[in-house]
């Protein structure tokens, strides 16, 4: 009973703030709404008993990722932030079919995943070993290849960031003169 109440509270907040992300004109409110979505989704994870996922949601998405949006925002001048002109109207219309296709794909993957995944097996494991251990065991056995590939992608991204962010040994002006 209490669980359902809290569930509806969090999901209500999540949906409302997701609408805020889309419709609010001021970018700093948009980021706050995004933060609120992420935190309430973490709350949903906690109700579902997935404490590890909830905590990671808070730590990675609500803090680490959103902080960088805030970084960008603090560089936005105050007067520009309250401008209400709609940007990129044409681009938005053009990209709409693509976004729709992505959403259809997500729904399909979700439905297939639900029908394929074993029912009730993990619940036993979780009550027996605890959240963190089960996630670790599954990640490092069944999904090991995917996990390693993702870490390779991250490594490439990191190298790219270092290359972009490094100081130039000589600037172009020096070169031409």
């Amino acid at each position, binding site marked *: 009973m209490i669980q359902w109440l809290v569930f509806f509270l969090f999901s209500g907040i999540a949906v409302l703030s997701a609408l805020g992300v889309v419709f609010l004109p001021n970018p700093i409110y948009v980021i706050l709404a995004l933060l609120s979505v992420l935190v309430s989704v973490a709350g949903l994870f906690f109700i579902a008993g997935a*404490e*590890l996922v909830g905590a990671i949601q808070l730590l990675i998405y609500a803090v680490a990722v959103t902080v960088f949006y805030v970084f960008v925002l603090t560089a936005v001048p105050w007067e520009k932030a309250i401008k209400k002109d709609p940007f990129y109207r044409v681009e938005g219309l053009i990209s709409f079919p693509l976004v729709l296709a992505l959403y259809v794909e997500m729904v399909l993957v979700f439905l297939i995943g639900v029908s394929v995944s074993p029912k009730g097996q993990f619940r036993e494991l979780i009550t027996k070993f*605890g959240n963190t251990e089960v996630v670790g065991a599954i990640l490092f056995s069944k999904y090991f290849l995917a996990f390693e590939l993702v870490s390779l992608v991250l490594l490439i991204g990191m190298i790219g960031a270092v290359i972009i962010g490094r100081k130039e040994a000589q600037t172009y002006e020096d070169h031409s003169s």
Partner: protein
Amino acid sequence: MDSVLAWLIITVIKILVILGIVLGIGAYLTLVERKVAAHIQRRPGPMVVGWHGLLQPLADGLKLLTKEDLFPRYGNRFLYNLALVLALVPATLVFAVVPFGPEFETFGIKVKPILTDVNVGLLLVFAFGSMAVFAIALAGWASNSKYALIGSMRKAGIVVSYEVVITFAVMGPIILAGTLSTYEIVQKQIEQKLWYIWLQPIAFVVYMFAVLAEMGRVPFDIQEAEAELVTGFTVEYGGMKFGLFPLVEWYVEGLSLSAIAVVLFLGGWSPINIPFLGFIDPLFFLGPLSPFVWFALKVTLLFLFILWLHWTLPRYRIDQITSTAWKVMLPLTFVNLVLTAVIAPLIWR
């Protein structure tokens, strides 16, 4: 139904006790800090209000409350006030996973002196701890002032770099304990008869540096930097709103991070440890109260250590701070992590 009711009552009592202790002590730590600073600099400190200035925090609070509530022109009032809430709430939420002592029994009910023993407690500590950065960024932006904005940008940079460092620093004790729950980590240290500081001295030192950075203490208090930024992101706040930021950042956060350091490295509520042999308890005459006294004692000592550093060291530049984090401390924690992962199974498995 009865058990649910009992659980609810106990939880409410726990929340009230923790909030009362944290905010009450937080307010009085202002006096402690001023006294410690004064004696380090060979002056008496506040002496007028009450015996040796004991009522000074009340006078300060009264002064702050009755001040005029100023608001910067062209600022954003909603965000300006929201920043206060965002600063206070996550900082106090951290105490939900701080274990104050071992399980005890009163009136036939077993009580764990921790608000919620969630099995990913440590992750939550760092999630809530780093949420302070939103409060600071918003405070800087909503004030519509250059000083405030520069201060908040500096603080955000520091928090981002040291959040990574602190997370990797605590991996060592987590590997040794094999759990993320704060209560279980202390239990493991008591079972293994070992404070993790003996095996993790590097992690402890790095953790303490990161604590200084997150609290905005000297040598990392560049976001305040009175000489160049006035007081950084709090510059446009007045009255009690101004008082709230140092209260949260210096005292509430400082207490929670010291408490977590005690839990991770100094064995929580256990008495003095001789590695692998056992514990010596000079406070045995206190009986069942002794664990709580030990916990409070360790947290107090760590906090005084931070104060001591604050009032003796000079300040670093911002680029020095962040480059130390990424180039010195992070590699150190990696080395520590690998060493721990190799050594831990050799000792216990």
